[in-house]
């Protein structure tokens, strides 16, 4: 069988020359559906040859990736083109970016001496400073929930179920989600605008020239702080929300404290707490990660910074809703 010259193993001999470079081989295979077509039927062992001659497809800084050219059979009305049959479920570029992003993330997380000194400051800035807005939201959520449940239950269900509904709803859903949404606006926009401004004013480049990894210096401490502090802030929000519902119930509804707490304990399980806190941690990770990634991708001037901040908030909120559904499916 004739074979394309490009696809012929190097003739300098021996198995040593055919040692596969795994990375390059995977890279080459991931490009198969994009390789230009050639003529001539395939020869036996073509795939083995492709892997074995990986040094021939090593990326070249000057000329880009040289790929072995693929055999394309004559056009047939019954068969799809060979490039379709070899197409990967994801674009090769996407897979490469995911691989590179993962390796950079691992490298940044392992660079502890860079991010560790910055962690506490970020925990204070992203977490502690967000407590007032979380409490503000929780107070009104508790009031509304108590009044709403009273309205629903009156005449149908004993009124002490108000405590059950307020507790369950705030612990498992509204506490984490509303706090997450509020922090997506406050924290996500803050991070994106800050890093975006650093990007457009070349401060991120300056970090690199000082031999810092921007991921380790800018991204990891913020994401760690968000992941650790969102559950803490959410805990405050839950406590305040339930307290707010209780105060509303005993003052505005025909309900006593023992009745409210009877309802609160009625369906309470420890899972109510940790379910909410697991969600809050994942929201913290998502919101801060979106903020950092959008910030680092900022281009242009003030307009670019504004755009990246908006996108960070939108993506943060969307992530919260998706994760909320995900945890409900997985953990309930």
């Amino acid at each position: 069988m004739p074979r394309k010259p490009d696809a012929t193993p190097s003739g300098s001999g021996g198995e040593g020359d055919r040692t596969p470079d795994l990375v390059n081989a995977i890279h080459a295979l991931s490009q198969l559906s994009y390789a230009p077509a050639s003529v001539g039927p395939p020869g036996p062992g073509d795939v083995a040859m492709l892997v074995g001659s990986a040094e021939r497809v090593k990326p070249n800084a000057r000329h880009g990736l040289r790929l072995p050219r693929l055999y394309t059979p004559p056009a047939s009305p019954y068969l799809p083109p060979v490039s379709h049959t070899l197409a990967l479920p994801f674009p090769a570029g996407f897979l490469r970016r995911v691989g590179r992003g993962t390796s950079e993330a691992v490298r940044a997380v392992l660079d502890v001496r860079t991010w560790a000194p910055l962690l506490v400051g970020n925990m204070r800035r992203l977490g502690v400073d967000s407590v007032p807005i979380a409490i503000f939201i929780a107070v009104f959520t508790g009031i509304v929930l108590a009044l709403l449940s009273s309205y629903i239950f009156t005449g149908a269900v004993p009124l002490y179920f108000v405590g059950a509904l307020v507790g369950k709803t705030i612990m498992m859903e509204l506490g984490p989600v509303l706090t997450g949404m509020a922090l997506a606006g406050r924290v996500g926009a803050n991070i994106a605008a800050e890093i975006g401004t650093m990007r457009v004013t070349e401060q991120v480049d300056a970090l690199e020239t000082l031999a810092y990894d921007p991921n380790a210096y800018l991204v990891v401490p913020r994401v760690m702080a968000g992941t650790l502090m969102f559950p803490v802030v959410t805990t405050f929000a839950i406590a305040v929300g339930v307290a707010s519902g209780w105060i509303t119930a005993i003052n505005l509804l025909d309900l006593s404290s023992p009745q409210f707490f009877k309802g609160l304990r009625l369906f309470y399980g420890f899972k109510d707490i940790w379910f909410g806190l697991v969600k809050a941690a994942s929201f913290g990770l998502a919101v801060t990660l979106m903020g950092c990634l959008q910030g680092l991708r900022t281009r242009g001037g003030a307009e670019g910074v504004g755009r990246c901040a908006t996108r960070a908030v939108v993506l943060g909120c969307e992530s919260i809703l998706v994760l909320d559904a995900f945890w409900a499916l997985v953990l309930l």
Partner: protein
Amino acid sequence: MIVFDRVSKAFGAKQVLDDFSLEIPEGETTVIIGYSGSGKSVALKHIVGLLQPDAGRVMVDGLDLAEIDRDALAALRGKIGYVFQFSALFDSMTVGDNIRLGLARRELPEDEIARRIEESLALVELEDAADRMPSELSGGMRKRVGVARAIALHPQYILYDEPTTGLDPVTSAVIDRLMVRVREQSGATGVVVTHDMRSAFTVGDRIAMLYQGQVRRVGTVAEIRETDDPVVRQFIEGRPEPDRRGATAQETTLP
């Protein structure tokens, strides 16, 4: 030594560097001149690996930046000081902390860090600025802090990206004098990107003109002053019309 070996770089459809080759010898200051948008800063960013070439090689101390791993690149960056066009000072930190950041990365003892901050601020005549925020400084002072941040690392190479752009003539002259003083005191190899010809003639040992993605002419300051290349002459004399004698039709239109 820094070597650009047939480097090409494009952004979208715009080919910025096109087979660009240049050798930057040790111990001298090489000035890269060229029109705005001609790719001077792009070339400079390749030296520290902030940009990667589409084709060709950038070699620093014999190392091909495309071939080395991230640790080696970080080590190489430790030998290079970079002065950014708009200073790129960290605006949430004081001047002293801006300088400290690069030194802290090298895990120097605290007294050595303090000494170097003091020394570098003294060299740029900003001894009292250590506790000030960048927003409290003028443009010229910010540039000098940028220089101080770079030289505090005692680099082997110092790269200046448009060091006098946007400054008044007197402040520009101060920055020029500072660059000369830094070279005399540290012996570092300098690369200066500018379109300020007065600055280029003051600080440069060699001048290379970047034109249409390639080096149009390279030589000593005297050679560039005396060149009869119409494109270079038009640029260094700042004339709106090119000298049509000896120029091709393409060269007689402004880029």
